[in-house]
């Protein structure tokens, strides 16, 4: 579903979009990394992850084109099996993987998967943010690691169908531009933690179906519906807005407007709720702080009143 178009139709367009400068550079960088049959990329995999193996020369780059995601996934599975059996450096450029999510397949397209001479597989993520003096933005690396972990899980699902089962390496290779240049450099990223977490999250995602079941029948998110109908449709899906959504979701401005209209304190950030106990709206909290409502025996209410009194005292002292 196109959440950006949906947001505009709801009357709360987001600031999303990508600068063509970033887009061009990202593509050019990935092309550079994969040029010459992936020579540079394979050199980095060899150097950072498998220095004991024979250096990659004349690596195989199997053709993976096929019709539709299912076809491409089948083609990828075949190529991976062949590569592991062959025991030679192989680069799979944009393979297609399927991962079971709550009973239905989700199709994933990693930047690359490399098959080592020992038959094992490595996930490669190519990003255009820089590694400056060996370090990179931790939030971006974290996101890349979580993404790689999903690919690892999908590869493990696939590997389990092969005989013998090829090992999927738990250290992914993150390739980025070095310092201020456009030359690639790489760092191994241990994704065992992210893999464990993702695996547990997927196991719990049976709830997705429950959510889908719980949706009112006939709910439809087509942007050409009138705004009121759209709003009603979106409202029927439970969503907990928090400011972090602003940088992650096209619908965030819409959700924020709803959240503010409801007076939800979490519109100010989720940590705000930490000490408010059962109070969830601005009006309730302020009324409790002023002593108009609330049970003084409730420690949240008592603390609010003390805070309000201390704040008033301090502001008064400052005016004097």
């Amino acid at each position, binding site marked *: 579903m196109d959440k950006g178009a949906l947001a505009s139709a709801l009357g709360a367009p987001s600031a999303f979009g990508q600068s063509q400068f970033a887009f061009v550079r990202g593509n050019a960088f990935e092309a550079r990394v994969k040029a010459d049959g992936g020579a540079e990329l394979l050199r980095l995999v060899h150097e950072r992850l498998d220095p004991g193996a024979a250096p990659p020369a004349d690596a195989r780059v199997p053709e993976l084109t096929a019709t539709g995601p299912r076809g491409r996934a089948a083609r990828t599975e075949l190529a991976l099996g062949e590569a592991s059996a062959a025991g030679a450096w192989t680069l799979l450029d944009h393979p297609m993987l399927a991962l079971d999510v709550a009973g239905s397949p989700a199709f994933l397209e990693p930047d690359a998967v490399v098959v080592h001479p020992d038959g094992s597989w490595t996930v490669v993520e190519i990003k255009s943010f820089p590694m400056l003096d060996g370090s990179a933005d*931790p939030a971006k690396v*974290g996101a890349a690691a979580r993404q790689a972990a999903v690919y690892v899980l999908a590869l493990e699902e696939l590997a389990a169908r092969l005989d013998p089962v090829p090992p999927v390496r738990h250290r992914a290779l993150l390739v980025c531009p070095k310092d201020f240049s456009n030359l690639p450099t790489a*760092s191994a990223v241990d994704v*065992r*933690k992210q893999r464990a977490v993702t695996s547990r999250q997927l196991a719990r995602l049976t709830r997705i179906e429950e959510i889908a079941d719980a949706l009112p029948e006939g709910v439809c998110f087509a942007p050409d519906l009138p705004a009121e109908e759209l709003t009603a449709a979106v409202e029927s899906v439970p969503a907990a807005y928090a400011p972090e959504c602003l940088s992650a979701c096209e619908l965030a401005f819409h959700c924020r407007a709803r959240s503010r209209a409801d007076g939800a304190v979490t519109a100010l950030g989720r940590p705000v*709720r930490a000490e408010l106990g059962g109070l969830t709206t601005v009006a309730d909290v302020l009324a409790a702080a002023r002593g108009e409502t609330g049970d003084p025996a409730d*420690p949240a209410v008592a603390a609010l009143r003390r805070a309000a009194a201390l704040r008033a005292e301090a502001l008064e002292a400052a005016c004097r």
Partner: protein
Amino acid sequence: MTTQAVPAGNAASDPATAAARATAAILSDTLHGRERGVVVDSPPGAGKSTLVVRAALELAEAGRPLMIVAQTNAQVDDLVLRLAEKSPQLPVGRLHSSDADPYDKALDDLPNVRKSAKAADLAGLAVVVSTAAKWAHVKVDEPWRHAIVDEAYQMRSDSLLAVAGLFERALFVGDPGQLDPFAIVGSEQWAGLSYDPSASAVSTLLAHNPGLPQHRLPVSWRLPASAAPLVSDAFYPYTPFRSGTAHDDRRLTFAVPSDGSGPDRVIDEAAGSGWGLLELPARHTPRTDPEAVGAVAAVVGRLLDRGGAAVSERSSDPVPLTADRIAVGTAHRDQAAAVRAALAGLGVADVTVDTANRLQGREFDVTVVLHPLSGRPDATAFHLETGRLCVLASRHRHACIVVCRAGVSELLDDYPSTEPVQLGTVVKFPDGWEAMMSTWDHWSGHRVPWRP
């Protein structure tokens, strides 16, 4: 979740043999090895203090001047008392700060323990013990031949930098699963550097000296057979350990039968299985949730009222479960204060009530834990820190009762783990979110719902 097999010592041998073999290897490397350092990982209750005292005595016996570095004054005093207990004749120095009341008054009763705020006054003693903070101010011309660094995983790298010039070689002992050291300001700019000053002393040491012998005490003598597998799987996924006792070695019984209330039922569940989860109805609450605090106090009260008795490998006669054998653990200080007040209200005294930080290294028969996520509307990094939950879940010899509001797994679903990743850092296991989930799943099998 274990995907990499790690040899867990010789699993076939009995625990005592496995532990003795590990200890012998450690002492051999410490006394006769050629490397400048030896690292020992010690899971909860694996005999770390015993090992430190034994190594200290053997080094002293061999005539090697020894300095011991611990992290807190309480740990230093505890070590001095243990050394004097094992070897009353040994001349021990207690180097202390110049603040008021710098050491435990009990040390004044030990004739061979000399106390001073100046290192020079303690020169020539077989063993000198102090905190890392105090050692950092000591200057010497001639370094000590040997050092023991205790709780090395709780020591910061910069703190080791300040004292490492004082000794030639050292034995580093600690528990990697407990609370990590922290800095009160950001230190991201050094993440990934081998000597990141905010990292643990052990990670810096091993980054620069990867060839040092690393040992692991493989057996927990504290945790019962019911607890060791969960604590090991959840908090030490790649360095497992086992319990030194079997399921029927320990027994917890109560003279007064259950009255059918929530606290009594959860006590019986925990007495039978080692774990109990007293689950209160889901609700968002402030930290000092009166109902949860009341439930904790009620459980403690009933533990005492019901005439508990513990049988263990230490004694075949039942030992009464007294207040000093029970502890309450919380995440925050105000929660501990609230529980203390509630216990005082019930007329209960002498039960230890403290935060995870202050319970590190302590041991009890039964613990009652207020779950860090109980009633929380949000889950912060503080509450998801694995070390905190690990400390709380690994203080007991017989049983651990967790008190919590329902809704933990839903809360965790809303706060998926999105930790940032610093390139070049060694990944620390496990993930807090994952450990919270796996322990919660296990405890849910011992759930007693209760509406106070």
